[in-house]
């Protein structure tokens, strides 16, 4: 599903964010990407969702060469890559229903289909009863579930979660990781989760990739920090 071959990226300020990264992630896999601040995690996400182009190497996601994508094809590609952020990025003036529907509206889906799909998603993220609530009426965990709902509304092949539990307490973090596992199993969505949460990584063991100064320094299928 995801193939990175010898990928490097340096910024104009001279920082080498990624250095000769080689990765292969299968369809339906759930992987953690861990590493200290400045290790290249955010750049990896940007390379994967087509926001930046690597200086060297190839990035293949679902058979698409992301780096070689024509500018106008990027939006279409992005419908296959859902993104979840630490700061939720919900639209405060829209309800939960409207926030999820928003992702479908912008790709031109007919209204009837939008209604059906949003109800499915709300059911999946267990927020049916909050459909008419506004983001500021929800807890952090619920807001993050809305963000996840919005990210999966288009049925993406890949879901990239950038520290989705970063702003949440342990109990809510548990809620989110459980939801992501549910999506991974039920929809067979490939999930890449960038995290700093040692407890989660150790408790819900999955393949764990560690980045440091732009290099992949560990890639363990056993999972957990202790395995690295």
């Amino acid at each position, binding site marked *: 599903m995801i193939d990175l071959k010898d990928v490097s990226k340096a910024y104009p300020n001279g920082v080498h964010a990624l250095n000769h990264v080689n990765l292969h992630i299968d369809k339906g896999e759930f992987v953690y990407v861990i590493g200290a601040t400045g290790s290249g995690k955010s750049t990896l996400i940007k390379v994967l*969702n087509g926001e930046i182009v690597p200086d060297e190497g190839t990035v293949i996601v679902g058979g698409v060469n992301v780096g070689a994508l024509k500018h*106008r094809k990027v939006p279409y590609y*992005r419908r296959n890559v859902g993104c979840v952020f630490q700061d939720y990025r919900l639209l405060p003036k829209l309800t939960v229903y409207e926030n999820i529907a928003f992702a479908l509206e912008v790709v031109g889906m007919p209204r009837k289909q939008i209604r059906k799909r949003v109800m499915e998603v709300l059911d999946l993220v267990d927020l049916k009863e909050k459909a008419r609530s506004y983001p500021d009426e929800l807890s952090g965990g619920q807001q993050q579930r809305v963000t996840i709902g919005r990210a999966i509304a288009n049925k993406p092949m890949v879901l990239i979660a950038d520290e989705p539990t970063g702003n949440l307490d342990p109990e809510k973090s548990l809620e989110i990781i459980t939801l992501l596992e549910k999506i991974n199993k039920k929809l067979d969505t490939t999930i890449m989760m960038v995290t700093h949460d040692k407890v989660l990584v150790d408790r819900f063991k999955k393949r764990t990739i560690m980045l440091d100064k732009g290099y992949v320094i560990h890639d363990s299928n056993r999972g957990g920090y202790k395995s690295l």
Partner: protein
Amino acid sequence: MLLFFKSLPRLVRNANKDMHRHFSMTFSSIVSIGIALLMALFIFVIYVNVGGFTNQIENEFMIQVSLNPTLEDEEISELADSIASTSSVKKVTYSSKDDELDALIKENGPMFKQYKGKDKNPLYDVLNVELKDNTKISKVTKKISKMDGVVKATYGGSAINTMIQLFKNIRVWGSVFVGLMVLIAVFLIRNTIKMTILVRKDEIAIMRTVGAYNWYISFPFVLEGIFIGFWGALGPVLICIFGYTGLYHVLNGMFFSNMMTMLKPYPFVLWTSGGILLIGMVVGMLGSYLAVRKYLRWTR
């Protein structure tokens, strides 16, 4: 393309929603473009009517060249050709002293009939010279008066010359002012759309993340600009239709004297209103396009 038409109602709704959401900014833009178009309208109405008035004067305005009575027909013809070949001269027509007397009698009454008959007519044969550019009348008159066989060359005088120059200036500077006003309106709309884009930057970022096409993101802003232009133009259009028609009726279609007649309201106001609406919408579109191009540019 199909997606565009499918999405059009939604894009229009979004543009309307944005206008309501940022009502104060939208309102100030509408007022600004309205004022700009209103001023442009006033200048245009004056421009067109003064233009008509100037044309009326200019058409009646020519140099009268009095000819030496000793000139033979052949010499008169040569002189006419020589004047006609002067730059700025449009047309030269010959009028004999008898024709001139007839015209005098017609204009001023039968008392001048006493000058009819051989050797009684004190007038000269004349050449009437029309010019392409009436601002050069003084220069051309001087040149003609120095030619052989010319007794004198006269025209309406310096007062009328100044008036023509004044009208020409009004035309030129009026056009410049209208152009400037339109530019200001473009700039104001560009600024409003820029503010809207900045206010909505989070929403735009989310739209990009979930895979919205760039045109889907930018089109509502362009529509918003067109709507602002339309609403801004509506006031001047109403003033044009009702104000001009009313003024025409109040003044009986004349400014001060029957020399300055106003253009008839129909179809003038309809064309002008259509033009104002179109300018408003094009200006709105241009302003928003400039903002979108600069602030919604996405590169990777």
